């Protein structure tokens, strides 16, 4: 993936660029709004990571608005030190696709970039999903593993569907909270983990090879690979 990072803080930039490169992506860095705007407009990127508050006269949201008006559809993830819900809404309204508050865990950033990229590639919401021998048909809401049918509660179905749509990607707890439950806050206890282990009981317990795996310090992933 070719990624552009527009961020003025040097340490954060170094950390993110290095991390992205280690994850196998190509990453460009712009330290000012002007450079960021120029790069974003001229180069074809898969995802743009945009800091909201930039030094100088152009702020992150303004760049996003300009890009969107110019017809650029590149997915944009907004990074911001402002955590208030209103700021989040303003960010998404200006044309951003996702919003991440600083400080953040790198795993969270990576997972969200992957999800944005996947979403931009276009999703067929009706096509059956398959991971290894696990099948899901979003239309009939039937789930099978091997040849055995699996009965899921509606919310469990939604959870598994989200995980399977992001198969082979890391999905963080926050992403699950936001997308499966629409909860934009941090519940104090790790309730998500309990939901995952219940789901795991249903899809993995009686099978030799687990598909739903925990990724340490990051979240979960559904994958058929080793």
């Amino acid at each position, binding site marked *: 993936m070719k990624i552009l990072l527009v961020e003025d803080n040097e340490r954060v930039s170094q950390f993110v660029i290095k991390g992205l490169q280690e994850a196998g992506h190509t990453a460009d860095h712009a330290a000012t709004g002007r450079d960021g705007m120029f790069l974003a407009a001229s180069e074809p990127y898969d995802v743009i990571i945009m800091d909201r508050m930039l030094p100088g006269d152009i702020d992150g949201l303004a760049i996003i608005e300009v890009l969107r008006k110019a017809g650029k559809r590149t997915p944009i993830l907004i990074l911001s030190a402002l*955590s208030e819900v209103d700021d989040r809404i303003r960010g998404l309204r200006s044309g951003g696709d996702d919003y991440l508050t600083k*400080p953040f*865990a790198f795993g969270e950033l990576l997972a969200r970039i992957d999800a944005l990229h996947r979403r931009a590639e276009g999703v067929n919401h009706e096509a059956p999903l398959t991971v290894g021998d696990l099948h899901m048909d979003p239309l009939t809401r039937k789930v099978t593993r091997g040849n055995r049918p699996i009965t899921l509660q509606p919310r469990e179905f939604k959870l598994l569907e989200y995980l399977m749509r992001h198969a082979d990607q890391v999905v963080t707890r926050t992403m699950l909270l936001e997308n499966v439950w629409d*909860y*934009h*806050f*941090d519940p104090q*206890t790790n309730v998500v983990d309990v939901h995952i282990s*219940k789901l795991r009981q249903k899809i993995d317990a009686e099978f030799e090879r687990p598909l739903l795996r925990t990724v340490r310090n990051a979240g979960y992933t559904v994958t058929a690979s080793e």
Partner: protein
Amino acid sequence: MMRSSALSLAMGYVALGLAALVLFAAPLWYAWQVTIQEGRAEYLQIDAQRLTEVYRHEGADALKSFIDTRVGMQIAGERILLLTDASLHPLAGNLRAWPAAVPATPGNYKVNLGLGDRGIQEALVHVTNLGQYNLLVGRDNALFRPLQTRFWYGLAAAVAVLCIAGLFVGIITRRALMTRVHSIRQTVSAIIHGDLKHRLPTHVNDDELNTLSRTINGMLDQIELLVHGVRNVSNSIAHDLRTPLAELRSRLEELSLIRPSTEQTYTEIDGAVADVDRVIRIFDALLRLAEIDAGMRRSGFVSLDVSDLAANAVEFYEPAAELKHIDLTFRSSGSLRVSGDPVLLAQALSNLIDNALKYAPQPGSIEVAVQRSAGGAEISVSDHGPGIDEAEKNKVVQRFYRGDASRGTPGVGLGLSLVQAVAKLHGSSLELKDNGPGLRAVLTLTIDESGVSPRETAPPEPAAAAVAPSTLALP
């Protein structure tokens, strides 16, 4: 001396008083003068006429002796009489000579005369021609002069009294006002210098200044409360952030000092990241609280169904409760719409359930209920845990307060204060009731009648819906 509003006000009143006095006195003076002039001229005319009669009927000699008799009889000086021949030589009367300023033609004149040894100012005289004789009658004005003088003195005295009284009242008012303003100024400057305990002096009577003082005192009460709150919170923040930061610091310091094996280093780093996450979580919770307190979140208000909201929260916590062998049930009397912030209400409810899960005995039960009550849409979370002592009820909603029962459990002590803040934002408050045993936390929200469809406005089906619990327990 600074410009005084009291003094200029008094001056204004004095000026107004003077104007009123002039407006009153001027017409009076004019009317008086005109009446006197006219009366006197008429009197002289009658006098002259009577003398003319004497002359016509009895001749000049009779007139002469008549005049002499009158002059001899009268009180000295009041009446002026003079009869002359054609060459203005005096024949009879009390004037020694014809006054130079008066012509010998009939008419009224005003002249200064010498009568005997005294002068008469502005005497009014009337001149008549009787054949070859000239007759002059006149009157001394002295009679009216003291009256005029008294009038002027009276007027001057009135002006003086008015001015002095005005000045006096002005100074008194100013002094009283300055005393009060001064005391207000002293109080305010004490407050400016940081002592928020001071209040403006107020009196029993409710004048303008007092009303203002009362209002300002109310404002000061609010400010003191806020400042106190901020101070409390910053103390708590300092305390609660210092603990994980201290742990983090010693962890890192130890790491750089001991330089343990790679594997152990990784474990320590993970621990350090967890410490930082804890700090971030406290920060996030505080920021959100501050945000809610500032009342900025009203923009997020929409019409929503609290019954749905609660059902979702219960469903979310169901597996966690099951794991603890706690029976989490949900009871609802049907759809109830309120106007509120869905994110914050969900978080508040989740905090309440989370709290109940922490303290409910295992195995045990927790009931979440949504029902229409007299006050509105009532959301309650009841457990059968240790509950909260009456004395502690006020404290648990304070920031960072953690009851004895919570020692050893995870959490930062902001959960209930967030619920309280969210309730306040929605014009409600968090009630902590005794569930005998246990705690029943109740949030009552105003029902949004406008958002209710006609079918839902009908009162909830009594017993049937309210009693039958729609338990969402998973199989």
